[in-house]
């Protein structure tokens, strides 16, 4: 039986998520044994032409060229999976969506006239049909292997949609907003990281974006009233890696 062809694509991103695939170490040989890594410039300059059975897409759409490229990638892909906060929500670069991008280019580049960029940074799913969104900044490599494994074995992926709190509770972490007054986005954030920050006594940064039914408004109201969070802090915690994902987008904007 022919091995499924896998392609990895990059849009506006830091490369961290696609490097999670190379970071698989123990599982890397098994991945390479199970799929044909046909197009992955970060790993090999040998590129096999499409179409591809699975495309992993990293990064957000930020240029006119990206707009064309994503449509072309969709056309040559069987399954299109977006990986990471940039691809699933627009990433940290979506902070431009709340400001004037021309001001940024003028401040950063000596010759801003050569910069061809869009006003906004947007998730892939705003432009083409996406079959699965794998969250995280960066993604969890074990979830990536699980996702590939579920595809290869034609089963549902075990990637739960619950809050980070569930991971904290299973690990036996005390709830730090309760026990030390930290501001923690865990209760409104999608699981997947294994409650990394709360396990080190630091409030959740919300790297995996909003969970389903995320009640950001209630969490912010409590933080303001009981944990004495000021509006600038609240704006900053919600307008972070997943700033463009609702309801983090609206909640951050409501604090000044």
């Amino acid at each position: 039986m022919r091995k499924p062809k896998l392609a990895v694509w990059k849009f506006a991103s830091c490369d961290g998520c696609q490097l999670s695939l190379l970071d698989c170490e123990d599982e890397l040989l098994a991945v390479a044994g199970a799929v044909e890594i046909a197009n992955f410039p970060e790993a090999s300059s040998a590129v096999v032409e499409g179409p591809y059975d699975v495309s992993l897409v990293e990064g957000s759409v930020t240029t006119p060229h990206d707009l064309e490229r994503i449509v072309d990638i969709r056309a040559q892909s069987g399954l299109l999976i977006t990986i990471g906060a940039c691809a699933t929500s627009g990433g940290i670069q979506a902070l431009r969506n709340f400001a004037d991008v021309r001001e940024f280019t003028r401040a950063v580049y000596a010759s801003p006239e050569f910069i061809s960029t869009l006003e906004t940074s947007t998730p892939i799913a705003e432009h083409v049909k996406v079959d699965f969104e794998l969250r995280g900044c960066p993604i969890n490599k074990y979830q990536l292997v699980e996702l590939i494994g579920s595809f290869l074995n034609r089963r549902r992926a075990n990637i739960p949609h619950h809050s980070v709190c569930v991971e904290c509770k299973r690990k036996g972490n005390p709830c730090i907003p309760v026990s030390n007054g930290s501001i923690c986005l865990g209760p409104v954030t999608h699981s997947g990281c294994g409650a990394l920050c709360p396990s080190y006594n630091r409030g959740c940064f919300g790297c995996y974006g909003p969970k389903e039914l995320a009640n950001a408004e209630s969490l912010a109201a409590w933080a303001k009233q009981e944990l004495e969070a000021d509006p600038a802090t609240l704006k900053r915690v919600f307008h972070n890696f997943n700033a463009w994902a609702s309801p983090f987008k609206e909640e951050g904007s409501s604090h000044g």
Partner: protein
Amino acid sequence: MFSMGRRDKAVTSHKFKDRIPGFVTEEGTKIDTRTFSLRGLDQLIQTLLDHGYQCIGPVVRDGVIAYDKVSSTADLPQGWTDEQSPGHYRLRKREDDACFGFVVGPHSWKRFLYPPERRLWQLQKQGQSFVRVGEPEVAPRYAFLGVKACELAAIGIQDQVLKDGPVPDPDYTQRRDNALIIAVNCTESAETCFCASMKTGPEAAGGFDLVLTEILEPKHAFVAQAGSERGREILDALQTAEASESQIESARAGIASAADGQTRTVDTDGLRELIERASESIHWGEIEERCLSCANCTLSCPTCFCSDVEDSTDLTGEHAERWRRWDSCFNRGFSFVAGGEIRHSTASRYRQWMTHKLSTWHDQFGSSGCVGCGRCITWCPVGIDITEEIQQFRLRDQL
């Protein structure tokens, strides 16, 4: 997974009455009550270890009082207490050297009896079929030191669900049968405690092997009674003296002050029916405005027992595993059935939780599912208070 049939059996052996239980029998005869010092407590822990138990008790860890391995009294939270209110917990220094001068921490004993994650089996492909691989796990032998009355009641409720029901969970049953329970009566309450309302505490009334009451007057000591043959053997192995009248009086006074000190109450009269009538109340929607559907309440609750069973394969498909993990009715996937999930709103999930806990639990298991430990109040990140919500349903019911 569990039968919804009505069960009329009383759920626990706890019968809290308006007497001073524990120190005299119902007939008025004095129960053999022993006493030992802090050094005696060390001897008790050593005896447990010598008997091959893993001793689990309260320890200070990560800014809370958690349950973990204990090898001497030096591991206990001596001189510490917990300050609790809705959405708030802080460790505080005590002015005395009490070892059990706290209420309950974020974890309950269910972590040890019903672990949060457990591999149920693994299979390996051999030829065209799968064979089971791996050695079956041997259940640990725990001695739990410092089980409070509300926790005992919770263990009694989980026994009903996981051990004494029509389909016993083999791992739970084995862990539970192995476990030795040393209860400690509460001599003070937190702001979030309401065990007196739920009739589960503050005094342990049964279901233990040994019960201790820590007294600070006339001097720091423990007053002990056996609750089983195993407990009697352990107690007999220690150097103890007969407890004096003044020590017993001091223990009684401590327990009475814990009961008197509870500021939260729940009127349980007709509560089951009240929640049943409230199924279409607009108040569920008002709770939804605050509730995060994060699942903290259910996972902190010592009686919540829901779990998910997850099957997975490796990349080759030649190795498969089945894991059980704690789940919650606040999670989307929890209500997944053929065709999709059925509880899409936070209001519907909160209603499910509270209705099960306070109303349909009676139908299913013959008791309330709430023991009044207050964890769901303290550990709710936005301080939702179940006793306050009950009061709101009462007020609306009277309109």
